[in-house]
């Protein structure tokens, strides 16, 4: 385990408990967001990791070593630190700011110059900026420098305390993209404190929801949207977001109709026609004996070929468009709508036909996302809506 926190407790001298029995394990390469209202203990917890604060009890281990046994100054030089107010030194050039930690670690000037150039390219700013002072850069540019300053000495762990809280929404978004990209590309581990749920959902691989110094829930963004642990988490996420998030967490399997009209290729066209008539549909999906999707059959195909062909296999179409049952609605809805399909077969991982998505089901999703609570009474188990040609 890269970073583990066990039974952390922080009680201030007045008796106020800021952090209460905090337990968390963080793997290398994770992007962990601490989220909560102010006073939830999220910043306090983060600041204990680089010993800016000393816990009252409990242990924090970095790479298996108890950080209380390390020299705090040496420890902090190994951990990147980005704060809300950016904290660039106004009397130092951008170059000097970027190389503050390398300089503390006594790197050679040549190595520092080289690193400063690498770093400024990493955040897509011109190298001329290296000789400017922070006041000559915009807020967003300054925080870009703040971010790479925390990377310049090859720190593996980066702590970020509401780093984008003071930036406008557009700048914030571009910086979120930046840190996410850098984090995945460079394999850094990030602990990111925020009170903005959108930010946490966008960035995190693991979200830690805190309230009153206690952990409310630790989960992936999807998991938190799907199963908020309690009312507090639900409120923090917000009803709107829970509903809007539905397309991005609902899988095709959850909305598909399961009772599909299907037929095997060896059946006679007569039987197919009868089946269409009984089910009141104008097309059938074709599967082999094992239930694997093979193609589809239209009423027109039967009409044109009734005289010359006998079995379904002779006239069916093999080029069928399908989706996987575990893919997200968010990713499939556009494809389905764009291609103008009225319905699309759904297969599982073994290519077995398991259901069908109709345009009606997609309407429900869009409706829910826009107007809230879904209507649970719709007949999703019924396949009678399966109609029209499958193209």
């Amino acid at each position, binding site marked *: 385990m890269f970073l583990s926190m066990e039974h952390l407790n922080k009680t201030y001298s007045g008796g106020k408990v800021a952090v209460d029995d905090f337990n968390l394990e963080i793997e290398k390469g994770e992007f962990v967001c601490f989220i909560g209202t102010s006073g939830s203990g999220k910043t306090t917890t983060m600041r204990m990791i680089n010993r800016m604060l000393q816990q009252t009890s409990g242990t924090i281990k970095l790479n298996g070593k108890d950080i209380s046994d390390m020299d705090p100054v*040496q420890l*902090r030089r190994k951990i990147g630190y980005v704060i809300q107010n950016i904290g660039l030194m106004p009397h130092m050039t951008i170059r000097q700011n970027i190389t503050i930690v390398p300089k503390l670690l006594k790197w050679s000037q040549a190595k520092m110059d080289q690193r400063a150039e690498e770093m400024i390219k990493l955040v897509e700013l011109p190298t001329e900026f290296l000789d400017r002072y922070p006041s000559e850069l915009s807020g967003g540019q300054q925080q870009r420098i703040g971010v790479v300053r925390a990377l310049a000495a090859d720190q593996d762990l980066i702590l970020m305390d509401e780093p984008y809280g003071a930036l406008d929404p557009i700048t914030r978004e571009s910086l979120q993209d930046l840190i996410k990209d850098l984090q995945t590309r460079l394999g850094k581990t990030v602990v990111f404190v925020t009170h903005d749920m959108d930010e946490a959902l966008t960035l995190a691989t693991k979200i830690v929801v805190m309230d009153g110094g206690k952990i409310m829930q630790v989960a992936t963004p999807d998991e938190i949207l799907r199963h908020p642990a309690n009312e507090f988490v639900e409120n923090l996420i917000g009803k709107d977001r829970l509903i809007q998030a539905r397309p991005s967490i609902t899988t095709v399997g959850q909305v598909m109709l399961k009772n599909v009209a299907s037929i095997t290729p060896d059946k006679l066209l007569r039987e197919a026609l009868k089946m269409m008539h009984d089910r009141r549909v104008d097309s059938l999906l074709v599967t082999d004996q094992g239930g694997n999707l093979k193609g589809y059959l239209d009423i027109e195909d039967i009409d044109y070929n009734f005289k010359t062909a006998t079995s379904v296999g002779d006239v069916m179409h093999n080029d069928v468009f399908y989706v996987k049952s575990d893919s997200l609605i968010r990713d499939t809805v556009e494809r389905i709508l764009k291609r103008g399909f009225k319905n699309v077969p759904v297969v599982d991982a073994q290519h077995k036909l398991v259901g069908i998505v109709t345009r009606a089901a997609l309407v429900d999703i869009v409706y829910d996302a826009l107007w809230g609570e879904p209507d649970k009474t719709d007949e999703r188990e019924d396949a009678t809506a399966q109609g029209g040609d499958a193209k």
Partner: protein
Amino acid sequence: MMHFLSVYGLQLVGKTWQHLYISAISLGLGVIVAVPLGVLLTRAKKIANVVVSIASMLQTIPALALLAFMIPIFGIGATPAIVALFIYSLLPILRNTYLGMNDVDPSLKDAAKGMGMTNWQSIIKVEVPLAGPVIMAGIRLSATYVIAWAALASYIGAGGLGDFIFNGLNLYRTDLILGGSIPVILLALIVDWLLGKLEVALTPRTTHE
């Protein structure tokens, strides 16, 4: 005026030098003691108020009385004058150093510590440079006080331009009083101007133009 200069010119140069010498040593000692003390106080905030209060109290002792107090301890001459003026120079420097250091943006101090600077590195690389202009303002204020009050030092035999003034007072000679006062004023103005230049030079750059 030409007459005054032809008679007292050489003496004037000597007294000005003495005056400058007493003031410079007092101020120098004041800077050496008060700046580090002010820096230390920011790391011991509990005693900071006590120390600043004591320095303020010393400031309220009438200048002439303080000079007189020095005679039993240091006798007469330049030494007691330098000690007394040194005490006077402490407060403005001490207070400005303390306030200037405290006024440095807390998030910068937080960033410095969080990146792994030791206490000492944070002071030298971040806090003192940023508090520089405020500290210099305190030194300039002290310099003006010390030069003005050094005139009183002649009362305890320290010499300096005060000799002209006291002689003039004793002999009812306006030309001697003016001949002592005007150089004191000029000296104070020139030193303040020079320190102002130094302050600009020491103010850290924040733009590259």
